[in-house]
Structures are given as structure tokens and as C-alpha cells.
């Protein structure tokens, strides 16, 4: 039987294997070691959610804690990348992009183009996103759309432990800056992951489930919810095809259009807010390039256009639920 490990451990294993393979790979961030300068245990935290735990003792000063200075931290990672290293830098929560965004979108993202193709910036920014932890409005957002908008950045959002490992290895080896988005509710999910090293190419969607009645494009944690709903609907004779783009930039347009060509119906499940988002972007793709296939209006299942609420009663309403996904699918299937 294949080995099963947690999403968080798959990320740790990718970092471990890449640090062992290439001594220019660095890991840096706030509390990625945890305990630096204290009287207690070094490697006390190993990341706020324990993802980097255990790397400290193995790679010496190639894993380093940072002061809480996201601009200097990310900027230093970018500068190190442009001068010969391959830093994997942790932006603890994606919500913190506001205190370091310049170094990502004006510096890292621009270098290769703005400097005439003469500079590589192989930096990875690992960051946590997503609601469901009662973490409130400033620690729960899905801001991958903002990064996806920027030319020069690659944006990755694995939904399984297998993808997390393979995509992170690819991200580290990639010569462009990569924003690697980890849903915090996925860390404790389990899946089959080979022990050996492997890389998953960017821009290749995963067809999670085959089906001919309706195409579901789901992102990140929403892939899991879509899968649950599809299982139930299969009992009612509705066969869903689920596409996990895995990377929002580059984006696998062909996979979406081919599936919509087969099903004629499209539902997009995206945990982020509904305007100027991946959901609207994929809708526009289908409308522009797949118009002749469509047999029903496109449905988007997203969060409402509000900040993420704190109260569990409200947050549960905020996050796209299996019930809302189910209703959207039934609606497009019933149309026409």
C-alpha cells in the first residue's frame, strides 16, 4: 500500500529533499525555526503551523528566523535570489502581503522583464491562506487572485499532499518568482505521497474526477468540497467532471475549455471574494473562448463580497458550503 502522509509533512519533505540536493536553497521566515534567541528550545515551533519543524538541525544556518519585518525579509529573499541563491521565504499569512507587497510585485516580479531578460529571480514565497479557523478578517483571506494578476509571478495552490510536494519542488527549481499558497485547513489532510523526489509541471490542471454532465473548476481547498458534492450527485445520476487547475498562473485554459466542450455546463468554486477573481476570470475564459459550447449560464460559488467574519456562525455562511455547491450544480444541470 502506498505511503500516506499529511499535507504539512509533504511540504516539509519537499523542502528537506531540495535543501539536501542543492545547497543554494535557503529557508527563511518568521519562526520557521522558532526559538532563535530564547532560553528555550531551538526549533521550538518550526513554523507557525509546524511545517518547517526538524529542518533546523539538518541544514545549519541555511534555515533562519527573521525579525517581524516582512518587507526586509521578502526583499532580502528576492535580493538573494537575484544574486545566486534559491530562497524559500515564508510570508506567514497571505493577509500580510500589505506590508511587503512592493518587494513582490514591483521588485521580484519585474526584474526579468525590466532588466531585459538578463536576471533570474528564483524565489519561492510560501504563504497560508483561507478561512475556517475563526481567525478573523486579517488572517483568513484568499488573496491569490491579487498575485495572479501580476505578470512575472507564478502562483501555485496545491489541494492535495501529492501536489503540495511535487509543486513545491517545481517551484524551488523554477527560475521565476513563485507564490506558493497553502490552505491552512489542508495541513492536516492526508494523501498518498511517494517518498522519492518528483516535480509537477506548472500550468497542467489535474482532472480530479471524470464526468460528462457538468464541469466543476475548483481551487485549493474547494477541490475537496467539490469532490464530496460530486460523490453525492453521482447517486442522483449527475456526473461531474472536476478540474483542479493547481496553478492559477500559468493557468491551464485548454483543460477547462476541453471539459466545457464535453459537458456544456460550468460551475466555478472559489473561496475568494467574487469580484476580479479566479471565478470571474474562468467565467470570462469560458464566455470568450467556449461560448459555442455553453448550454447554461455559468455559476460561480464564492464567498460574499465581505471581509471574513469572526463568529463561527457567520464564517460558516461565508465559506462556500457543500450545500451551495450542490445547489449551483443542480441549477446548471437543470437549465434548458
Amino acid at each position, binding site marked *: 500500500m502506498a505511503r500516506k502522509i499529511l499535507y504539512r509533512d509533504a511540504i516539509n519533505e519537499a523542502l528537506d529533499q531540495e535543501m539536501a540536493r542543492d545547497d*543554494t536553497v*535557503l529557508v527563511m521566515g518568521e519562526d520557521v525555526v522558532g526559538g532563535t534567541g530564547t532560553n528555550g528550545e531551538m526549533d521550538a515551533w518550526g513554523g507557525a503551523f509546524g511545517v518547517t519543524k526538524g529542518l533546523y538541525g539538518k541544514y545549519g*544556518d*541555511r534555515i*533562519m528566523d*527573521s*525579525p517581524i*519585518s516582512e*518587507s*526586509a*525579509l*521578502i*526583499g*532580502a*529573499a*528576492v*535580493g*538573494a*535570489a*537575484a*544574486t*545566486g*541563491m534559491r*530562497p524559500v521565504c515564508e510570508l506567514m499569512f497571505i493577509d500580510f502581503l500589505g506590508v511587503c507587497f*512592493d*518587494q513582490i510585485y*514591483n*521588485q521580484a516580479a*519585474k*526584474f*526579468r*522583464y*525590466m*532588466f*531585459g*531578460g*538578463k*536576471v533570474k529571480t528564483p524565489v519561492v514565497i510560501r504563504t497560508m491562506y483561507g478561512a475556517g479557523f475563526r481567525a478573523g478578517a486579517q488572517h483568513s483571506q484568499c488573496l491569490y487572485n491579487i498575485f495572479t494578476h501580476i*505578470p*512575472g509571478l*507564478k502562483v501555485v495552490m496545491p489541494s492535495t499532499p501529492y501536489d503540495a510536494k511535487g509543486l513545491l519542488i517545481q517551484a524551488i527549481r523554477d527560475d*521565476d518568482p513563485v507564490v506558493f499558497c497553502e490552505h491552512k485547513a489542508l495541513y492536516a489532510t492526508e494523501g498518498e505521497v511517494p517518498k522519492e523526489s518528483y516535480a509537477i509541471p506548472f*500550468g497542467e490542471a489535474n482532472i480530479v474526477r471524470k464526468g460528462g454532465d457538468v464541469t466543476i473548476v475548483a481551487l485549493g481547498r474547494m477541490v475537496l468540497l467539490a469532490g464530496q458534492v460530486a460523490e453525492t450527485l453521482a447517486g442522483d445520476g449527475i456526473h461531474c467532471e472536476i478540474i483542479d487547475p493547481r496553478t492559477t498562473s*500559468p*493557468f491551464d*485554459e485548454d483543460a477547462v475549455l476541453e471539459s466545457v466542450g464535453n459537458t456544456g455546463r460550468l460551475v466555478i468554486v472559489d473561496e475568494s471574494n467574487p469580484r476580479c477573481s479566479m471565478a470571474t476570470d474562468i467565467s470570462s475564459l469560458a464566455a470568450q473562448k467556449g461560448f459555442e459550447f455553453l448550454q447554461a449560464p455559468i455559476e460561480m460559488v464564492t464567498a460574499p463580497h465581505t471581509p471574513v467574519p469572526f463568529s463561527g456562525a457567520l464564517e460558516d455562511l461565508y465559506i462556500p458550503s457543500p450545500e451551495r455547491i450542490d445547489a449551483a450544480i443542480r441549477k446548471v444541470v437543470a437549465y434548458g
Partner: protein
Amino acid sequence: MTTALSVEDLLNAYRTMKTIRDFEECVHVEFAKGEIPGFVHLYAGEEASATGVCMNLRDDDYIASNHRGHGHCIAKGVDVHGMMAEIYGKRGGTCRGKGGSMHIADFDAGMMGANGIVGGGPPLACGAALTAKMKGNGGVALAFFGDGASNQGTTFESLNLAAVWKLPCVFVVENNGYAEATASSWAVSCEDISMRAEGFGMVGITIDGHDFFAVHEAAQEAVERARNGGGPTLIECKLDRFFGHCEDDNQSYRAPNEVREIRANKDCIKRFATVLTANTEITNSDLVAIDGEVRVLIDDALAKAVADSAPGAADLLTDVYITY
């Protein structure tokens, strides 16, 4: 003179300062004719700083620069022909016409880029210093920024990070008295920007940035400290710019005759030349000969930049991944 510089070093320094000056005077004239596109910020008047600092750097040391970056580029050894073509947006430019005046970079020369974002450079210099530290190659990284950037959070964060990580990094703030049109004496909360170094646990020093020898000596000490594992230093060069914040700036915020008096009494190149001819074997005719060579170089760079072709439509979509 307090520094042990050879005659050759001094002549090279003079040549660099003169090259920066003539380059900037040339760009100023051509911009006024409407020949140069975009935003251009000239470094004339500040030549002693870039030159005195960069003479202490190896070719494989890195500098991060700012919007007023032409002087830093020349002092670090970026090709003048490529720079001029870049400012004109031409194919032969340092960045193939995709960067412009505010984004000239040449990593092979250790130049990490001029930068359009005030305070954008110090974090990047920390990164280059981290690379040097990790590689153990004795390299140093240095950030040039202005009095305006000295008030940016990125700068404060970088000073602290460099001190905490004990990075081989040097921070050079060029205080020319104005952040765009606002006085640094008003916008900076302390008398000398270098006083802020103490708060970050590093050495800070303020020097007369018109004085090449003062700059060279301070930078030499800071670079050696960084190279020897002694951590970062903050150097403040107080100096003056001959032109406005950018071209098109009518400088109505400056006093009448302010620039004329600066040019007459605080010109760092005149001051340097006076010391050279008075205290060394260098003669005025040596300097005049360099002046002539520099003039030929700049004229040639201008002529070639003007004659160079513009990038083509195919260049629009290269140097960035596109799948759409």
C-alpha cells in the same frame, strides 16, 4: 589627504566623477530638447559620493541603487554606451530598452538596479549580502538611497535585519536636502540621519559628501568592517544636487541663486581637482586630457544611442512567461 590612494587611483576617480558629470549634463540638455522619454533624475553634483564609495568595492560586490542612479551605475562600472541607449529606450540599452533611466541594472557589474520605488533597494542589498555570507566569498553589498528613503519602513527594517543577521552590508544615505520638493530638514526627525544607526546597534557617521576623500575614507572603513564580519554601517553623505528632483522640475522650492552658489562654491569635482593639483604630482593638463577623453566618450554614447534602433513588437512579449 588621509587615504593612501595612488596617482592612478586618483586619476581614475577624477575620470569617473567627470564621466558622471558630463553624462548628466548631456542628458539634461537632450531632455530639454524633447529627445528623451520618461522620468529622468540626474545625479550631477553628487559625484564624490558614488565615486568615493564604489572605489572600495570589488567587481563582484553588489550595489542597490535608487531613482537617481546614473552616478551609481557609472561608478560601479556599468557601460556608458548601454546606459545612454537604455535612457533612450533603444535595443542596445543595458536592459534592451525595457527598463529606462529608473531601472538600469547590470548584475554582471554588481549593479542590482536603479529603482523606481523610494526605499526599494535596502532590502535587496540585504539579500545580496546574505548571498555573500552564505557563499563565504568575502563579498559585500551596499545600498545607496536618499534622505526621502531614510524615512521608509523598508529602510528601517533593512537596517535592523542587517544588524540582526550580521550581514556584510553598508547603507549609504545621500542627503541632498530635498525629498522631491520637501526639505529633509523638515521631514527627517533628527538632525543627522546617521544618528538613527545607534538605534539599530550599528556605527553611523555623517560626512561632507562634497569631499571625495571624506567619502572614500568612511566607505573604506565601512566596507572593511562588513568584509571582516563586523556587520553593517550607516553612512550619511550630505551633498547637493545641481538639478531638480527630475527633469521638468522648475525647482521653485529652492532659493533664488541656490543652485548657482552650489555650483560655484560646492562643486565636488572642482574641489577634488584643486586638491589633486595642489597636493599631488597631478597637473592641470592631466585633468584637461581626461576631460577631453570623457567628452569624446559621452558624445559617442549619445550619437550611438540616437542612431540605435528601437525594440520591435516581438520584444514586447519576451523575458516573461506568457501562456495566454
